[in-house]
């Protein structure tokens, strides 16, 4: 007799978030990054549909990233410090499906660029590449509250993903994202309660849960990956069990965390790539929907891994 597998039946499903607007939606993007929509736990294809592959986007900075090791900068020769060229290189040479623009230069310790200047940059990037765009603030709450509304307006109609919104600083960002038709990143500090509370607070302001992508805050391999894994697993279990306020897709800043690891920076070449790759694949198994990564080789490997996984 054939073995009958016990399949879990889930009452909920992860919401689908569309990043990027094509001319059909009055935007100018060449395609849409569609994430979420899972009706089963990660990789359990036999239990329910997992309609959308995890997506990987390239991280691009508005300024020259100072602490990136040689191994990481090697692939971006001559474009670092010029975000427009950098983004174009990602798309042309490495076939990037999306760009994550980090506006670090707006931070007072990194050049203190004005919101207007950064908004112009966003416009330029949108003109020079046609892939969907993710816009990240500089990490200073007060500055982000000026910076992100300006960028949001500059990218109006393009349905970007903008963030981060945190529990202590979400109102201004939500208001502009709401007005300009974007999606939002809700960041919580490895805490399922705060993740949920923040989603409630954001949706209380009128932004649909279907426009929220959660950043659960991750750690790299060897640096707390298992905590992130367990929080993501708990959120996803709650989401699939019918808790709509936790049924949002995840964004994971893999590159940022992996390349902070000592092992990635100072070890023999290749180890950093492996570190970033392994962090990414582990998080995909935890349920990551959108991965922001840095090294072209690591991205290539993870893309292969995802294609392999979904080839059925």
């Amino acid at each position: 007799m054939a073995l009958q597998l016990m399949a879990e039946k889930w009452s909920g499903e992860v919401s689908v978030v569309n990043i990027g607007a094509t001319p059909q939606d009055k935007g100018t993007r060449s395609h849409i990054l569609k994430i979420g929509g899972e009706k089963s736990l990660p990789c359990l294809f036999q239990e329910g549909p997992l309609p959308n592959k995890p997506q990987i986007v390239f991280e691009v900075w508005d300024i020259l990233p100072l602490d990136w090791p040689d191994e990481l900068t090697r692939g971006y020769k001559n474009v670092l410090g010029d975000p427009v060229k950098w983004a174009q290189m990602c798309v042309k040479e490495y076939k990037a499906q999306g760009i994550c623009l980090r506006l670090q230069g707006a931070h007072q310790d990194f050049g203190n660029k004005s919101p207007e200047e950064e908004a112009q940059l966003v416009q330029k990037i949108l003109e020079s590449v046609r892939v969907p765009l993710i816009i990240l603030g500089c990490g200073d709450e007060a500055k982000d509250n000026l910076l992100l509304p300006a960028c949001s307006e500059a990218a109006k109609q393009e349905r970007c993903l903008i963030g981060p919104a945190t529990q202590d600083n979400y109102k201004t960002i939500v208001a502009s994202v709401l007005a300009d038709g974007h999606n939002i990143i809700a960041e919580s500090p490895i805490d399922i309660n705060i993740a949920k509370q923040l989603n409630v607070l954001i949706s209380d302001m009128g932004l649909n849960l279907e426009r929220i992508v959660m950043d659960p805050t991750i750690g790299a391999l060897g640096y707390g990956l298992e905590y992130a894994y367990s929080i993501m697993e708990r959120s996803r279990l709650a989401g699939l069990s019918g808790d709509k306020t936790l049924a949002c897709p995840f964004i994971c800043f893999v590159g940022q965390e992996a390349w902070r690891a000592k092992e990635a920076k100072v070890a023999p070449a290749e180890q950093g790539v492996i570190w970033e790759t392994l962090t990414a694949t582990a998080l995909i198994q935890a349920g990551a929907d959108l991965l922001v990564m840095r090294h072209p080789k690591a991205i290539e490997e993870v893309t292969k891994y995802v294609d392999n996984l979904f080839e059925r």
Partner: protein
Amino acid sequence: MHKFKVTFYPDNKAVEVAQDTTILSAAISCGVYIKSDCGGDGVCGRCKVILKKGKVLTQPTGIIEAQERKHNIYLACLTTVHSDLEVEVPVESRMEMHSGFQGIYSASEEVESQEAVLGGKLFKHSPLATKLYLELPRPNLNDSLSDLDRLFRGIRKAQDLPVMQTGLSNIRQLGELLRDSDWKITVTLGKRNDTVEIVLVEPGDTSNKNFGFCFDIGTTTISGQLVDLNTKKISGTRITYNKQASFGADVITRIIYARQQEGMEKLHAAVTQTMNQIIKELTLEHSVDLNDVTCIVCTGNTTMIHLLLRVDPTYIRREPYVPTANFLPVLRASEAGIIINPRGLLSCVPGVSSYVGGDATSGVLSSGLYKERDLSILIDIGTNGEIALGNRDFLVACAASAGPAFEGSGVKCGMRASGGAIQKVKIKPGDFSLEFSTIADTRPTGICGSGYIDLIAAMLTAGVMDRSGKIKAVEHKRIRKGENGKEFVVVFKEDSGSGEDIVITEADIENIKRAKAAIYSASAVLIKHMDFKISDVKKIFIAGGFGTSLDINSAIKIGLLPDLERKRFFFIGNSALAGARQMLLSAEATRVSEELARKITYFELSVDAGYMDEYMAALFFPHTDLERFSSAAGRRS
């Protein structure tokens, strides 16, 4: 060592103290009570005083701002005496002590006055101490029984009592007393555990004057009631802050303080002074002779009872958290420093464990929870809240330390539920115009626990703050930046009775959020631990110093109480005090309370793996899991 005189205003009380004494301890030693939530550690900032005259030394602290320093404001606990001083204690730092709260507290008093609140049969009337008038036959050559045996025989003739005993001092005076009073005497019989004792022999007939007191000794407030033991009537009630609050706001700080030099003596003196003052005031008011007060029953959490009896509470806070005693024998009140009839008795309601004390037992007793057929829960909302779950088949209880916020302490404009306290609030969405009512309809001077609950619910509904408790950043005359973050003005100073703005700060909201989270999560974990669902609970008894002014919808809206049908909720006021009164009036109630204390299973929340998760999830208005509060959440989308 130099001695200096310190005078406190407006009390106009003075005391001589040695150099280097802190102003706080000088104040305590002359009966001026200054707030001090941290027990003199210099961190809570409640003990600000104004130096009018004299020289002091003070430690630097961030709590006193430069502006305040200019006005000679100091922290009483960090400032020492270095010359004769004149010190003004401002209203905010003063601990409100006495004066009549009768009537003002009427809401819960109504409930408290009821005999055995719910569930049928009353306890048989048989007070802890009874008086019996006897006319003994004179001895003669044929009836030569000794005086004492004659007395015993006389008592046995009137009542069927088994074992009797009496003290030497009674026997010493007996011969003369009997003859002087022409063999007409009144004996006071006290129940000391299983034996009956002749407490007192008095000349003549005083049997119609027999009074007792019951007390609920809370961490923050003490309530006392004078009861006529013959008629079972309550003559009067007094509620006041526990003077021990000067040594710390919670039991743990007090246990630590008890280990300091003379710490135990000070704590003991503070509680007995508070009780003696209540006794004195009530007896004076009702023209009762202290000698006619023959017994007293006390309930309270385990630490409070230890401190009352001057028993070392140290081991209550050390693992494995074992108290010195849960069941205490009936003692003489004078042994504990309580001034009633010198030979009067003192009985304490038996406790369950270190953190579920006699107040829980007496709450279960008076609520009738132990007789319920359906699953019921008793939630006693206090600084050391207790929660008991069960029915006539089983009883479990746990402690939920909520802090003093609901009793109006530890919050900026907090006060007890007494005259002038804001108890109901309505805020109009949009323009934030505000309506409120105060207890006794006097000008508002502060906000009481039920007022805070109503206020926070109203702020949520009107959109003044978000679900995490952050006040919205909108331009409005009521919203402003205060010393400690954002605050919302409830009453402007023109309309307040204190001449100052009445505000609620984000820090206050945070305090209340933690307190309500502690109560709710403890209830939820206890119910889950017993494998029930919250919806299985058929009756919810709410006890605490709220009175009937607590709005259930508001309490559910902020997530303090579970979202169940409103008709399942019952207010029982101060259930601990009601239970103590039942014990005062009935030996049967005493017996039942002993059974209950043995029967209640103590559940230690700190060892439950799910408690921390539950607590964290409850730190939101009403709760992170909005599904649990579907009727209250009122999602705006």
